[in-house]
């Protein structure tokens, strides 16, 4: 059967060239990273959107026991820019509620607060702002008011260091003990690199596997629907077609994921404060190749058995859902990466590519588990290819009614008849 490997390559080349010219492929491949980049760059392009504006806040202190500063400076962090924004809040005292209300309506102040007489018992403070600005609960202001009240109440009771500790009791820092044994401080960049990127990679992996094996499914069903498969079969063997298609579309998927990873790598140097580990990249590629082979040959089998695109996509959907299930359980995997369930997902061939990359993002996965998952996937790939090429041979030319499961199983057993 291997007499004409060049026909496999002709099929592969044709599939590759045909697919990379498809609009769906170009859209997914180039617009998707642009979209991602666009989202991460947006705050930098429009700097005025998220930072706080300077505010004037009126207050009416019915307890008479609190001391407000004239103004405070608050520092806000806006994503996308490395500088922190400073905004100023001015506090204006009022005696009468009616005065404050007048000034608010006149736009002289942006909001006012009332501290009731029984504040010490209830801790309630009311904030009034104009109707138009139905503002979200102002967490920042609430924190600042807490500081002001703590300072006012305890200023003369305790020393300054104690006062500072009460205002800001704990300041956590995170360290990793690396291979050198030296502790190193973990910044946001490192957390993102070890946590976010593998997950992002897992997502991209899944997208890429789905889109390229989807192309395969569609290709097979189309060829079956428009009957060109009969001409192909008069020239090449079913396994040459199967191998050619998997090879060609695998190359498409590989190209796609390389473009994406390149975009992430370039983008990360620019927009995201992170760096990518080479090992993760390497494993991602291996998982892509195996995961793709697994799905693609499964899709080819489904495409051979079913007789219309709609029907094939319905059946493929079941498997796609199973493969996407790690995304549903992502929370579980991330919070408890070493639980039996997470380990199972990262070993089971349908889910292992995504689940394992996600686990690697949050925990040190034992090497034997990675190897085991790769091994299981590898064996499964062989099984599925064997099975699919049999289905391919038996069912490619059967149109009309889809065969029942029992008949399919029988034909898988009897093989090439």
């Amino acid at each position, binding site marked *: 059967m291997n007499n004409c490997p060049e026909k496999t390559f002709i099929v592969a080349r044709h599939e590759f060239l045909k697919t990379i010219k498809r609009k769906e492929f170009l859209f997914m491949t180039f617009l998707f990273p642009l979209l991602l980049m666009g989202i991460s760059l947006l705050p930098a392009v429009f700097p005025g959107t998220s930072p706080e504006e300077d505010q004037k806040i009126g207050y009416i202190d019915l307890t008479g026991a609190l001391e407000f500063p004239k103004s405070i400076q608050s520092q806000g962090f806006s994503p996308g820019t490395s500088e922190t924004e400073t905004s100023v809040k001015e506090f204006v005292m009022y005696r009468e509620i009616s005065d404050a209300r007048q000034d608010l309506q006149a736009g002289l102040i942006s909001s006012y607060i009332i501290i009731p007489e029984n504040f010490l018992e209830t801790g309630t403070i009311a904030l009034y702002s104009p109707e138009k600005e139905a503002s979200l609960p102002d967490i920042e202001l609430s924190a600042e008011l807490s500081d002001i009240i703590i300072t006012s109440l305890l200023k003369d009771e305790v020393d300054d260091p104690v006062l500072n500790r009460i205002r800001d009791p704990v300041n956590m820092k995170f360290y990793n003990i690396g291979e050198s044994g030296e502790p190193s401080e973990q910044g946001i960049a490192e957390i993102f690199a070890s946590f976010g990127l593998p997950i992002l990679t897992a997502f991209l992996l899944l997208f890429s596997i789905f889109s390229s094996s989807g192309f395969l499914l569609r290709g097979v069903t189309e060829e079956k629907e428009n009957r060109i498969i009969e*001409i192909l079969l008069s020239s090449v*063997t079913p396994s040459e077609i199967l191998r050619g298609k998997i090879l060609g579309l695998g190359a498409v998927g590989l190209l796609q994921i390389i473009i994406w990873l390149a975009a992430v790598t370039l983008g990360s140097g620019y927009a995201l404060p992170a760096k990518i580990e080479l090992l993760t990249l390497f494993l991602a590629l291996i998982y892509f190749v195996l995961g793709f082979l697994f799905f693609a040959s499964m899709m080819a089998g489904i495409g051979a058995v079913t007789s219309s695109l709609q029907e094939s996509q319905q059946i493929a959907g079941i498997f796609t859902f199973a493969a996407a299930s790690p995304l549903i359980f992502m929370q579980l995997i991330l919070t408890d990466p070493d639980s039996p369930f997470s380990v199972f997902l990262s070993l089971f061939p349908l889910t292992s590519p995504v689940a394992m990359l996600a686990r690697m993002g949050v925990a040190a996965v034992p090497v034997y588990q990675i190897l085991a998952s790769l091994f299981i996937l590898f064996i499964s790939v062989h099984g599925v290819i064997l099975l699919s090429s049999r289905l391919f041979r038996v069912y490619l030319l059967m149109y009309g009614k889809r065969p029942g499961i029992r008949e399919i199983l029988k034909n898988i057993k009897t093989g090439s008849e």
Partner: protein
Amino acid sequence: MHTVEFQSVSKSFSDKNIIRDISFSMEQGEIFGLLGPNGAGKTTLIRLLLDIIKPDIGKIYVFGKPLSPAAKNRIGYLPEERGLYRKTGLLDMLVYLAQLKGMPEKQAHLIAESLLKSLDLYQYKNKKVEELSRGMQQRLQFLSAIIHDPDLIILDEPFSGLDPVSAKTVKDKILELRASGKTILLSTHMMEQAQTLCDRILMLNKGGRVLYGSVDEIRIEHGKNSLVVEFAEKEDFNAIREIPGIKKIIESGKSVELFPEEGIKIQFLLEELVSRTNLLRFEQTLPSLNEIFIETLESAASE
């Protein structure tokens, strides 16, 4: 060496016999008709020949050997269910299909261009297949079966859906191919086409072989052995009754159908007729393939 040889081939699908004990051979340079009603097993037989499906029992030889990948490159196939990539350009598609038959890309390109020119499709060479009219698609499909210069060409219903002009183009092309020594398998249920084009035929019914042999022989074999004659004058009608060796005469309008007795030579009758009458027309009636086809099917159904 036979170009194609089937030896007692049978094939069944899920307990239904599709092909039952078929033997036949095809010789180089002939147009071989594969005839039969719908569902007789013609397409299955072609798929067996192409090794797309395997026989349950029996042997199939193509170019003297069981079909090899290299031999597949020498076969061109036009399936009954027409199929082309709808979104691919004409030229690209022809080149791809030729490459799958083992033709180098550059050569395929040159031949594809010249073939497109020969069937008036050259100006559409970069158009997508779906943009062509049905007739053009049919012609293109025909090209895809012969682009790699095959020695054996299998045409399953090549005239279905063709307008008269395209049908004539395809017919001329088939005759041209035979003249250059190619072997052609023509599967059809259009008997007039088969009768004029085919040298020999195999007729299938319900998977079994009902007729096999040269078209002329089959027609003589199935002939009622009668002669149709026509005379210039009415009196001649009486003259023929004096000719010995005629067992039955049926008059029908101007012409008369004569049934000679067993062992009487046609040549003898002709001489007698010429000497006694003013003969306008003398014709040995042979049933058309269509008549034989219907007769064979009816006798098979009544059994």
